[in-house]
Protein backbone atom coordinates (compact mmCIF):
# COMPACT_ATOMS: atom_id res chain seq x y z
CA UNK A 1 0.00 0.00 0.00
CA UNK A 2 1.39 3.36 -1.02
CA UNK A 3 0.55 6.69 0.53
CA UNK A 4 -0.89 9.10 -2.00
CA UNK A 5 -0.94 12.80 -1.47
CA UNK A 6 -3.13 14.93 -3.64
CA UNK A 7 -1.16 17.58 -5.50
CA UNK A 8 -4.24 19.78 -5.61
CA UNK A 9 -4.30 22.75 -3.20
CA UNK A 10 -6.88 22.54 -0.45
CA UNK A 11 -8.91 25.45 -1.75
CA UNK A 12 -9.36 23.84 -5.16
CA UNK A 13 -10.11 20.29 -4.06
CA UNK A 14 -13.84 20.70 -3.44
CA UNK A 15 -14.31 21.84 -7.03
CA UNK A 16 -12.53 18.95 -8.67
CA UNK A 17 -14.95 16.89 -10.71
CA UNK A 18 -17.56 19.68 -10.79
CA UNK A 19 -18.78 21.24 -14.01
CA UNK A 20 -16.95 24.46 -14.67
CA UNK A 21 -18.54 27.86 -14.98
CA UNK A 22 -18.67 30.40 -17.76
CA UNK A 23 -15.59 32.47 -16.97
CA UNK A 24 -13.15 29.59 -16.78
CA UNK A 25 -14.48 27.96 -19.91
CA UNK A 26 -14.49 31.21 -21.84
CA UNK A 27 -10.88 31.87 -20.90
CA UNK A 28 -9.98 28.35 -22.00
CA UNK A 29 -11.76 28.92 -25.31
CA UNK A 30 -9.87 32.16 -25.84
CA UNK A 31 -6.57 30.39 -25.26
CA UNK A 32 -7.60 27.69 -27.75
CA UNK A 33 -8.53 30.33 -30.28
CA UNK A 34 -5.10 31.89 -29.90
CA UNK A 35 -3.53 28.47 -30.31
CA UNK A 36 -5.46 27.72 -33.48
CA UNK A 37 -4.78 31.10 -35.03
CA UNK A 38 -1.14 30.89 -34.07
CA UNK A 39 -0.91 27.41 -35.52
CA UNK A 40 -2.44 28.62 -38.75
CA UNK A 41 0.05 31.43 -39.13
CA UNK A 42 2.90 29.17 -38.20
CA UNK A 43 1.73 26.89 -40.99
CA UNK A 44 1.51 29.85 -43.29
CA UNK A 45 5.04 30.84 -42.36
CA UNK A 46 6.23 27.28 -42.96
CA UNK A 47 4.65 27.18 -46.41
CA UNK A 48 6.14 30.56 -47.19
CA UNK A 49 9.56 29.34 -46.12
CA UNK A 50 9.29 26.34 -48.39
CA UNK A 51 8.26 28.55 -51.30
CA UNK A 52 11.13 30.90 -50.56
CA UNK A 53 13.55 28.02 -50.50
CA UNK A 54 12.26 26.73 -53.80
CA UNK A 55 12.33 30.09 -55.63
CA UNK A 56 14.05 32.83 -53.69
CA UNK A 57 14.21 35.26 -56.60
CA UNK A 58 10.54 35.34 -57.42
CA UNK A 59 9.28 34.80 -53.90
CA UNK A 60 6.04 36.36 -52.79
CA UNK A 61 3.94 35.62 -49.77
CA UNK A 62 1.02 33.43 -50.84
CA UNK A 63 -2.31 35.21 -51.03
CA UNK A 64 -4.89 34.05 -48.55
CA UNK A 65 -8.45 34.96 -49.40
CA UNK A 66 -11.02 35.33 -46.66
CA UNK A 67 -12.99 32.21 -47.65
CA UNK A 68 -10.08 29.77 -47.75
CA UNK A 69 -8.63 31.40 -44.66
CA UNK A 70 -11.84 30.87 -42.70
CA UNK A 71 -12.22 27.34 -44.07
CA UNK A 72 -8.66 26.49 -43.13
CA UNK A 73 -9.09 27.90 -39.64
CA UNK A 74 -12.36 25.98 -39.30
CA UNK A 75 -10.81 22.66 -40.29
CA UNK A 76 -7.77 23.32 -38.17
CA UNK A 77 -9.89 24.14 -35.13
CA UNK A 78 -12.16 21.12 -35.57
CA UNK A 79 -9.20 18.81 -36.04
CA UNK A 80 -7.37 20.26 -33.08
CA UNK A 81 -10.34 20.00 -30.73
CA UNK A 82 -11.23 16.49 -31.90
CA UNK A 83 -7.70 15.28 -31.39
CA UNK A 84 -7.31 16.78 -27.94
CA UNK A 85 -10.73 15.82 -26.60
CA UNK A 86 -10.44 12.21 -27.78
CA UNK A 87 -6.94 11.74 -26.39
CA UNK A 88 -6.34 13.63 -23.16
CA UNK A 89 -9.74 15.25 -22.86
CA UNK A 90 -8.20 18.68 -22.60
CA UNK A 91 -7.03 21.28 -25.04
CA UNK A 92 -4.24 23.72 -24.33
CA UNK A 93 -6.77 26.19 -23.00
CA UNK A 94 -8.31 23.51 -20.79
CA UNK A 95 -4.83 22.56 -19.60
CA UNK A 96 -4.10 26.12 -18.59
CA UNK A 97 -7.44 26.54 -16.83
CA UNK A 98 -7.51 23.07 -15.31
CA UNK A 99 -10.49 21.71 -17.24
CA UNK A 100 -11.31 18.38 -18.85
CA UNK A 101 -14.07 17.24 -21.23
CA UNK A 102 -15.87 14.00 -20.41
CA UNK A 103 -18.62 12.03 -22.06
CA UNK A 104 -21.93 11.07 -20.51
CA UNK A 105 -20.29 8.30 -18.48
CA UNK A 106 -17.60 10.48 -17.01
CA UNK A 107 -14.94 8.96 -19.26
CA UNK A 108 -12.79 10.29 -22.08
CA UNK A 109 -14.69 11.06 -25.26
CA UNK A 110 -14.56 8.82 -28.29
CA UNK A 111 -13.34 10.22 -31.62
CA UNK A 112 -16.79 10.41 -33.20
CA UNK A 113 -18.30 12.17 -30.22
CA UNK A 114 -15.33 14.48 -30.01
CA UNK A 115 -15.68 15.31 -33.72
CA UNK A 116 -19.37 16.12 -33.36
CA UNK A 117 -18.70 18.29 -30.33
CA UNK A 118 -15.83 20.07 -32.09
CA UNK A 119 -18.02 20.85 -35.14
CA UNK A 120 -20.80 22.07 -32.89
CA UNK A 121 -18.49 24.25 -30.80
CA UNK A 122 -16.66 25.82 -33.74
CA UNK A 123 -19.88 26.38 -35.70
CA UNK A 124 -21.84 27.85 -32.82
CA UNK A 125 -19.46 29.06 -30.11
CA UNK A 126 -22.16 31.13 -28.44
CA UNK A 127 -23.65 27.93 -27.09
CA UNK A 128 -21.18 28.45 -24.30
CA UNK A 129 -23.36 31.23 -22.90
CA UNK A 130 -26.04 28.70 -21.92
CA UNK A 131 -23.84 27.88 -18.92
CA UNK A 132 -25.03 31.03 -17.23
CA UNK A 133 -28.68 30.02 -17.12
CA UNK A 134 -28.15 26.29 -16.86
CA UNK A 135 -28.68 24.93 -13.36
CA UNK A 136 -26.07 22.28 -14.13
CA UNK A 137 -23.38 24.47 -15.69
CA UNK A 138 -23.92 22.93 -19.12
CA UNK A 139 -23.38 24.63 -22.42
CA UNK A 140 -25.70 24.06 -25.35
CA UNK A 141 -23.24 21.54 -26.73
CA UNK A 142 -23.15 19.75 -23.41
CA UNK A 143 -26.92 19.55 -23.32
CA UNK A 144 -27.20 18.12 -26.82
CA UNK A 145 -24.27 15.71 -26.64
CA UNK A 146 -24.59 15.03 -22.88
CA UNK A 147 -20.99 15.93 -22.18
CA UNK A 148 -19.44 17.65 -19.19
CA UNK A 149 -16.55 20.04 -18.78
CA UNK A 150 -15.18 19.71 -15.28
CA UNK A 151 -12.54 21.24 -13.13
CA UNK A 152 -9.75 18.68 -13.15
CA UNK A 153 -6.30 19.74 -12.07
CA UNK A 154 -4.92 16.25 -12.11
CA UNK A 155 -2.36 15.40 -14.71
CA UNK A 156 -3.95 12.21 -15.92
CA UNK A 157 -7.47 11.11 -16.64
CA UNK A 158 -8.85 9.38 -13.58
CA UNK A 159 -11.08 6.38 -14.12
CA UNK A 160 -14.76 7.13 -13.80
CA UNK A 161 -16.40 5.93 -10.61
CA UNK A 162 -19.44 3.72 -10.50
CA UNK A 163 -22.65 5.77 -10.48
CA UNK A 164 -23.37 4.81 -6.86
CA UNK A 165 -19.93 5.90 -5.70
CA UNK A 166 -20.06 9.34 -7.27
CA UNK A 167 -21.61 11.79 -4.86
CA UNK A 168 -24.32 13.98 -6.31
CA UNK A 169 -24.42 17.61 -5.40
CA UNK A 170 -27.09 19.30 -3.33
CA UNK A 171 -30.36 19.72 -5.15
Amino acid sequence: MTARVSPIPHAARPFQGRRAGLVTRTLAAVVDLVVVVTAFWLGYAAVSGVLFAMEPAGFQFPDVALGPWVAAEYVLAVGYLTLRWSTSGRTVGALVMGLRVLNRNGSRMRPVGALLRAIFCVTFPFGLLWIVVSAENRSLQDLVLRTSVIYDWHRRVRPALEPAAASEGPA
Partner: protein
Amino acid sequence: MIAQRAPEDDDAPMDGQVPPPGRSAPASRNSASGVDLVAGAAAIGAEMAAGVAGAVVGTLEAAGRHLGRPVAGLARAVGGGPVGTRIGRTATRIADRGRAERLRAEADLARLLDAIVPEVVRAMMTRIDLNQIAADIDVDVIARRIDVDAVIARVDLVGITEDILDRIDLPEIIRESAGSMTTEAVHDVRMTGIGADEAVSRVVDRLLRRRGARRTAAPGQQTDGFTEAVERDRQEDPFP
Protein backbone atom coordinates in the same frame (compact mmCIF):
# COMPACT_ATOMS: atom_id res chain seq x y z
CA MET B 1 4.12 -18.37 42.85
CA ILE B 2 0.46 -18.76 42.21
CA ALA B 3 -1.17 -21.40 44.34
CA GLN B 4 -2.85 -24.18 42.44
CA ARG B 5 -6.55 -24.40 43.14
CA ALA B 6 -8.28 -27.71 43.52
CA PRO B 7 -10.99 -28.34 40.94
CA GLU B 8 -13.59 -28.73 43.69
CA ASP B 9 -12.76 -25.21 44.91
CA ASP B 10 -14.08 -23.47 41.80
CA ASP B 11 -16.98 -22.01 43.70
CA ALA B 12 -14.80 -20.68 46.50
CA PRO B 13 -13.46 -17.10 46.33
CA MET B 14 -9.76 -16.46 45.69
CA ASP B 15 -7.59 -15.88 48.73
CA GLY B 16 -7.49 -12.25 49.72
CA GLN B 17 -10.48 -11.27 47.58
CA VAL B 18 -13.23 -9.37 49.29
CA PRO B 19 -16.79 -9.92 48.10
CA PRO B 20 -18.46 -6.79 46.79
CA PRO B 21 -20.50 -4.76 49.27
CA GLY B 22 -24.06 -5.84 49.68
CA ARG B 23 -23.31 -9.39 48.73
CA SER B 24 -22.41 -12.19 51.09
CA ALA B 25 -19.46 -14.36 50.23
CA PRO B 26 -20.27 -17.63 48.52
CA ALA B 27 -20.30 -20.56 50.92
CA SER B 28 -16.94 -22.22 51.03
CA ARG B 29 -17.10 -25.96 51.32
CA ASN B 30 -14.15 -26.00 53.68
CA SER B 31 -15.45 -23.27 55.96
CA ALA B 32 -18.95 -24.78 56.14
CA SER B 33 -17.88 -28.37 56.58
CA GLY B 34 -17.95 -28.38 60.40
CA VAL B 35 -21.37 -26.84 60.66
CA ASP B 36 -22.74 -28.87 57.81
CA LEU B 37 -21.27 -31.99 59.36
CA VAL B 38 -23.22 -31.38 62.53
CA ALA B 39 -26.35 -30.70 60.55
CA GLY B 40 -25.79 -33.78 58.37
CA ALA B 41 -25.15 -35.93 61.43
CA ALA B 42 -28.34 -34.71 62.97
CA ALA B 43 -30.27 -35.55 59.83
CA ILE B 44 -28.68 -38.98 59.51
CA GLY B 45 -29.31 -39.65 63.18
CA ALA B 46 -32.91 -38.76 62.71
CA GLU B 47 -33.21 -41.10 59.77
CA MET B 48 -31.49 -43.92 61.68
CA ALA B 49 -33.71 -43.34 64.70
CA ALA B 50 -36.77 -43.49 62.53
CA GLY B 51 -35.49 -46.74 60.93
CA VAL B 52 -34.73 -48.37 64.29
CA ALA B 53 -38.05 -47.28 65.66
CA GLY B 54 -39.82 -48.73 62.63
CA ALA B 55 -38.02 -52.08 63.05
CA VAL B 56 -38.91 -52.19 66.72
CA VAL B 57 -42.48 -51.42 65.90
CA GLY B 58 -42.56 -54.21 63.33
CA THR B 59 -41.14 -56.70 65.83
CA LEU B 60 -43.55 -55.66 68.51
CA GLU B 61 -46.46 -55.84 66.09
CA ALA B 62 -45.44 -59.39 65.13
CA ALA B 63 -45.23 -60.28 68.76
CA GLY B 64 -48.48 -58.51 69.39
CA ARG B 65 -50.23 -60.70 66.96
CA HIS B 66 -49.43 -63.44 69.37
CA LEU B 67 -49.74 -61.53 72.61
CA GLY B 68 -52.87 -59.74 71.75
CA ARG B 69 -53.97 -56.27 70.84
CA PRO B 70 -53.34 -54.61 74.20
CA VAL B 71 -49.62 -55.32 74.10
CA ALA B 72 -49.34 -54.17 70.51
CA GLY B 73 -51.10 -50.90 71.31
CA LEU B 74 -48.69 -50.36 74.19
CA ALA B 75 -45.66 -50.93 71.96
CA ARG B 76 -46.98 -48.49 69.35
CA ALA B 77 -47.53 -45.88 72.04
CA VAL B 78 -44.00 -46.23 73.49
CA GLY B 79 -41.56 -46.78 70.58
CA GLY B 80 -43.63 -46.53 67.38
CA GLY B 81 -43.71 -44.15 64.37
CA PRO B 82 -44.70 -40.95 66.15
CA VAL B 83 -41.52 -41.00 68.22
CA GLY B 84 -39.15 -41.47 65.19
CA THR B 85 -40.85 -38.71 63.27
CA ARG B 86 -40.41 -36.38 66.19
CA ILE B 87 -36.67 -37.06 66.33
CA GLY B 88 -36.27 -36.43 62.58
CA ARG B 89 -38.08 -33.12 62.77
CA THR B 90 -35.88 -32.02 65.64
CA ALA B 91 -32.72 -32.86 63.69
CA THR B 92 -33.96 -30.95 60.66
CA ARG B 93 -34.70 -27.90 62.75
CA ILE B 94 -31.21 -28.05 64.24
CA ALA B 95 -29.64 -28.28 60.75
CA ASP B 96 -31.71 -25.35 59.45
CA ARG B 97 -30.72 -23.26 62.37
CA GLY B 98 -27.06 -24.17 61.85
CA ARG B 99 -27.25 -23.12 58.15
CA ALA B 100 -28.91 -19.84 59.03
CA GLU B 101 -26.24 -19.07 61.61
CA ARG B 102 -23.49 -19.80 59.13
CA LEU B 103 -24.95 -17.52 56.46
CA ARG B 104 -25.44 -14.75 58.99
CA ALA B 105 -21.83 -15.04 60.09
CA GLU B 106 -20.63 -14.82 56.49
CA ALA B 107 -22.71 -11.70 55.89
CA ASP B 108 -21.30 -10.12 59.06
CA LEU B 109 -17.78 -10.92 57.93
CA ALA B 110 -18.41 -9.37 54.49
CA ARG B 111 -19.73 -6.16 56.07
CA LEU B 112 -16.74 -6.04 58.37
CA LEU B 113 -14.31 -6.42 55.46
CA ASP B 114 -16.17 -3.75 53.48
CA ALA B 115 -15.64 -1.35 56.31
CA ILE B 116 -12.07 -2.23 57.17
CA VAL B 117 -10.30 -3.00 53.91
CA PRO B 118 -10.76 0.45 52.24
CA GLU B 119 -9.43 2.14 55.37
CA VAL B 120 -6.47 -0.20 55.51
CA VAL B 121 -5.66 0.36 51.82
CA ARG B 122 -6.01 4.11 52.23
CA ALA B 123 -3.66 4.06 55.19
CA MET B 124 -1.18 2.00 53.18
CA MET B 125 -1.32 4.39 50.28
CA THR B 126 -0.44 7.34 52.51
CA ARG B 127 2.60 5.48 53.77
CA ILE B 128 3.87 4.27 50.39
CA ASP B 129 6.05 6.51 48.18
CA LEU B 130 4.76 5.64 44.73
CA ASN B 131 7.30 7.93 43.09
CA GLN B 132 10.07 6.00 44.70
CA ILE B 133 8.55 2.72 43.55
CA ALA B 134 8.20 4.08 40.02
CA ALA B 135 11.82 5.24 40.13
CA ASP B 136 12.93 1.78 41.13
CA ILE B 137 11.22 0.20 38.13
CA ASP B 138 13.68 -0.58 35.35
CA VAL B 139 11.82 0.65 32.31
CA ASP B 140 14.49 -0.62 29.97
CA VAL B 141 13.86 -4.17 31.07
CA ILE B 142 10.15 -3.76 30.39
CA ALA B 143 10.82 -2.10 27.05
CA ARG B 144 13.07 -4.95 25.99
CA ARG B 145 10.21 -7.36 26.58
CA ILE B 146 7.83 -5.41 24.35
CA ASP B 147 7.42 -6.74 20.82
CA VAL B 148 7.66 -3.45 18.97
CA ASP B 149 7.21 -5.08 15.59
CA ALA B 150 3.89 -6.56 16.68
CA VAL B 151 2.75 -3.17 17.94
CA ILE B 152 3.77 -1.46 14.70
CA ALA B 153 2.05 -4.17 12.68
CA ARG B 154 -1.22 -3.23 14.33
CA VAL B 155 -0.84 0.47 13.55
CA ASP B 156 -2.10 1.87 10.22
CA LEU B 157 1.07 3.77 9.44
CA VAL B 158 0.04 4.47 5.86
CA GLY B 159 -3.28 5.90 6.96
CA ILE B 160 -1.65 8.04 9.63
CA THR B 161 0.95 9.28 7.16
CA GLU B 162 -1.71 10.17 4.62
CA ASP B 163 -3.71 11.98 7.26
CA ILE B 164 -0.71 13.97 8.44
CA LEU B 165 0.39 14.87 4.93
CA ASP B 166 -3.15 15.85 4.06
CA ARG B 167 -3.48 18.09 7.09
CA ILE B 168 -0.21 19.91 6.64
CA ASP B 169 -0.93 20.46 2.92
CA LEU B 170 2.46 19.23 1.84
CA PRO B 171 1.92 20.03 -1.86
CA GLU B 172 1.37 23.66 -0.99
CA ILE B 173 4.54 23.71 1.10
CA ILE B 174 6.52 22.16 -1.74
CA ARG B 175 5.08 24.64 -4.17
CA GLU B 176 5.93 27.54 -1.91
CA SER B 177 9.48 26.34 -1.35
CA ALA B 178 10.46 24.98 -4.73
CA GLY B 179 7.60 25.61 -7.11
CA SER B 180 8.14 27.59 -10.24
CA MET B 181 6.60 30.95 -10.85
CA THR B 182 4.72 29.49 -13.79
CA THR B 183 3.00 26.86 -11.70
CA GLU B 184 2.08 29.38 -9.08
CA ALA B 185 0.73 31.73 -11.70
CA VAL B 186 -1.31 28.97 -13.32
CA HIS B 187 -2.82 28.03 -9.98
CA ASP B 188 -3.66 31.63 -9.29
CA VAL B 189 -5.34 31.97 -12.66
CA ARG B 190 -7.32 28.78 -12.14
CA MET B 191 -8.45 29.74 -8.65
CA THR B 192 -9.40 33.18 -9.89
CA GLY B 193 -11.42 31.54 -12.64
CA ILE B 194 -13.21 29.30 -10.18
CA GLY B 195 -13.98 32.28 -7.98
CA ALA B 196 -15.31 34.21 -10.95
CA ASP B 197 -17.44 31.24 -12.01
CA GLU B 198 -18.97 31.04 -8.58
CA ALA B 199 -19.60 34.77 -8.46
CA VAL B 200 -21.33 34.78 -11.86
CA SER B 201 -23.43 31.79 -10.89
CA ARG B 202 -24.50 33.43 -7.63
CA VAL B 203 -25.52 36.64 -9.36
CA VAL B 204 -27.47 34.87 -12.09
CA ASP B 205 -29.14 32.52 -9.66
CA ARG B 206 -30.17 35.47 -7.56
CA LEU B 207 -31.62 37.25 -10.59
CA LEU B 208 -33.47 34.08 -11.60
CA ARG B 209 -34.63 33.63 -7.99
CA ARG B 210 -33.19 30.17 -8.12
CA ARG B 211 -32.99 28.43 -4.77
CA GLY B 212 -30.32 25.94 -3.81
CA ALA B 213 -26.91 25.31 -5.26
CA ARG B 214 -26.36 24.27 -8.85
CA ARG B 215 -26.16 20.57 -9.60
CA THR B 216 -22.66 20.58 -10.95
CA ALA B 217 -21.56 17.07 -10.05
CA ALA B 218 -20.41 15.33 -13.20
CA PRO B 219 -21.08 11.61 -13.65
CA GLY B 220 -18.37 9.30 -12.41
CA GLN B 221 -16.56 11.96 -10.41
CA GLN B 222 -15.69 12.05 -6.74
CA THR B 223 -16.63 15.48 -5.44
CA ASP B 224 -16.31 15.43 -1.67
CA GLY B 225 -16.37 18.65 0.26
CA PHE B 226 -18.12 20.72 -2.36
CA THR B 227 -21.14 21.58 -0.22
CA GLU B 228 -18.90 22.87 2.55
CA ALA B 229 -16.91 24.95 0.08
CA VAL B 230 -20.03 26.50 -1.42
CA GLU B 231 -21.35 27.27 2.04
CA ARG B 232 -18.03 28.86 2.96
CA ASP B 233 -18.08 30.98 -0.16
CA ARG B 234 -21.59 32.14 0.63
CA GLN B 235 -20.59 33.14 4.11
CA GLU B 236 -17.62 35.08 2.75
CA ASP B 237 -19.70 36.71 0.03
CA PRO B 238 -19.39 40.47 0.53
CA PHE B 239 -22.72 41.04 -1.23
CA PRO B 240 -25.15 38.60 0.33
